[in-house]
């Protein structure tokens, strides 16, 4: 039985059809070539799925967080590389939801509604888990800012029409000296550097971005100067469940493929065969627990309750489950698993523990919440718990 609304079930069904038609048949080929799946942006344009997080007043679909999670799970089920393009584009738009003013929203949601994608530029060679350690600078000059520096591991970097770039506006102020900017594709001095070849999600586009004297209007500043890290952290709170949703999709796919294979090749080992039965049951326990935890997080967000800790829990849990389940699936499928598309699921799963905050960073967030002084009596009941 599903607790989803009729509308959510319908969206899930439509997405599944889209994934079956456009994603699954192309996933292996693009993974093998390590080539960006530009065709998918065309295929998805009409549905406006890349604008599913954009409010209706700007022409988007304004899906709830839970509904977005359902869509992302289906994309992750089909291909986490392609799903990553969608998740990272939403990540690139989230800062506008967090801190964009009316004019900025009007201007920058538009290219996404029309079929473009966005990118989020936080990471730098010296700023990975230590996200505030970046060296990119933005210097105010009249009614402009001039940006200099570089970003690395930027998903969608080679194909986005809009970028959010974090840069230091006041190097003396540490975390509070960082600001967030909107940078449009094609600004002089804003170029793509090396393209990364990765263990998994190989058809997603991961690049270095180079900024050399890039002039942008001062009106491209998001929020106020110095609010960049705050905006980035709020953005990541929203975005992490998207990664968790992709991870659940990967895990579910691995389980489904595994069951299909074992039923075909080893029917006599499944019935009776407690070793296999229990291994499959354990996989199902993990997938179901991961999905339920994620859905709870998304519902908290939809209800307006705080969800930062739950967001970190979902990301860590779902990422770890995806890694464990795909490893188990390859193991249960033996040489067939090792020489088939199943191995891709295992390669794809690894990034779920790494990007948008490693699962160690999630544990830092979670442990801080666990160790925080107990709230005053009466305030302890969290919404939804």
């Amino acid at each position, binding site marked *: 039985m599903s607790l989803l609304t009729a509308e959510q079930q319908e969206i899930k069904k439509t997405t599944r059809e889209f994934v079956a038609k456009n994603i699954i048949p192309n996933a292996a080929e693009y993974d093998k070539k390590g080539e960006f799946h530009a065709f998918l942006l065309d295929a998805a344009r009409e549905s406006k799925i890349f604008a599913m997080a954009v409010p209706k007043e700007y022409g988007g679909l304004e899906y709830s967080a839970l509904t977005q999670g359902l869509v992302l799970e289906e994309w992750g089920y089909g291909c986490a590389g392609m799903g990553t393009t969608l998740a990272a584009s939403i990540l690139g738009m989230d800062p506008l939801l967090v801190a964009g003013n009316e004019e900025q929203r009007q201007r920058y949601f538009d290219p996404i509604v029309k079929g473009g994608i966005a990118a989020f530029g936080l990471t730098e060679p010296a700023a990975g888990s230590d996200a505030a*350690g970046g060296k990119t600078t933005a210097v105010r000059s009249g009614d402009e800012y001039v940006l200099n520096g570089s970003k690395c591991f930027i998903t969608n970097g080679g194909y986005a029409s809009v970028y959010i770039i974090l840069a230091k506006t006041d190097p003396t102020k540490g975390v509070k000296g960082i600001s967030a900017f909107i940078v449009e594709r094609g600004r002089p001095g804003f170029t793509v550097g090396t393209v990364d070849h990765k263990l998994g999600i190989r058809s997603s586009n991961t690049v270095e971005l180079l900024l050399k004297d890039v002039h942008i209007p001062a009106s491209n500043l998001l929020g106020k100067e110095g609010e960049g890290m705050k905006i980035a952290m709020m953005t990541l709170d929203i975005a992490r469940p998207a990664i968790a949703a992709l991870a659940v999709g990967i895990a579910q796919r691995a389980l489904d493929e595994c069951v299909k294979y074992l039923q075909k090749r080893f029917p006599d080992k499944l019935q009776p065969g407690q070793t296999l039965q229990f291994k499959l049951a354990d996989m199902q326990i993990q997938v179901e627990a991961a999905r339920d935890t994620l859905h709870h997080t998304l519902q908290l967000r939809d209800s307006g309750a705080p969800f930062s800790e739950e967001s970190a829990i979902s990301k860590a849990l779902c990422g770890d489950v995806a890694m464990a389940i795909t490893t188990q699936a390859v193991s249960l499928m*033996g040489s067939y698993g090792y020489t088939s598309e199943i*191995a891709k699921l295992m390669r794809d799963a690894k*990034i779920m523990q790494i990007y948008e905050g490693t699962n160690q960073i999630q544990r830092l967030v979670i442990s801080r919440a666990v160790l925080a002084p107990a709230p005053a009596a009466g305030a302890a009941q969290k919404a939804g718990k």
Partner: protein
Amino acid sequence: MNFQLTEEQQLIEQSARDFAKEFLDPIAVQLDYTGEFPKAVIAELANHDFLGLHLPAEAGGAGAGFVSYVAVIESLSRSSAAVTSIINNQAMASYAIQTWGSDAQKKQYVRAFIKGETIGAFAVCENGPTTGIGPDALNATKTEDGYVLKGTKAYVRNAGEAGVYVVFAVTDAADPNALTAFVVDASAAGLKVGPRLNTMGLKGCPVAHVVFDDVKVPETAVLGSLKAGREIATRVLALASVAEAAQTVGIGQAAVEHAAAYAKQRVQFGKPIATLQAIQTLLAEAATDCYLARLALRAAAQLVEDGKPFEAEAAIVKSFLARLGSKILVDSCQVEGGMGFSESMPLPRLFRDIAGTTLLDSPADFPDYAIAASIA
């Protein structure tokens, strides 16, 4: 009880490390990229006496014993587990022929293996639920002067490069559990190597299905006696699982050491990440798993060397690494974060390789069953 290698074993291990530095490190990345069979390396392995390490001196081998063999495999695997997959599969064929073969078979094949002139392949696996059962099972039909082989061997390592295949076939349709081993020349008419399969890792060690389309072999192609194949396969596969564990430990150790070196130089939050306890824990657990696996595999290897039963111990090593082998790489990559996911760095290759040395058991032969049976 001595857990240390003897002086002689240490010398052999050191020679393998030196060899790996000189001949494997320079080609490992390219080998992974192209997947081309490393012919020149095989010739050098023969020149350095590594291909006959496990074989007795009278057969032309080094007579070094199985403990030395696994120490060498571990050392070489730190640099390229694709190369050690080729060596291990060839060793399975050479061991089988040396142990069960006729004088003529030994004379014809073993020295050629040791000299690297012929590559051997050992092919048990089939596409059915278990060897001997299923529509593609390899069947051997008796003729006047030999046998006709028909069927398919699946996921054969060294396929296409091998000059000779040790295969297992059903000779008595009424008794499909009784297999017979055959030594088949790659040039035999009707032996067809299928397209090379795309393995996630261990690239450079070719894997393909091998189709036997009415392949005629003489009576003398039988290895050992009729219906002795199951016993041969079981013993060789148990040996191979110890050798495979040595590959895993080599890959794992290389990964842990790389991750530790990375952690020492990667500065975040104003200090090397190696100073963070979360990173120390990841490294410590991975190093612990490598260490315990090495002890366990050496204990099993010592039993082999002493001629004692080792099957349960081999299964224990295998089961341990099926659970934890991949985790060593999952966690080592994690230490390196985004760099641990970038194919410009070594760990993704090791991640793909270790899956190939730890996860390929079919549900038909989970080691757990053998372990459970051994607990009296």
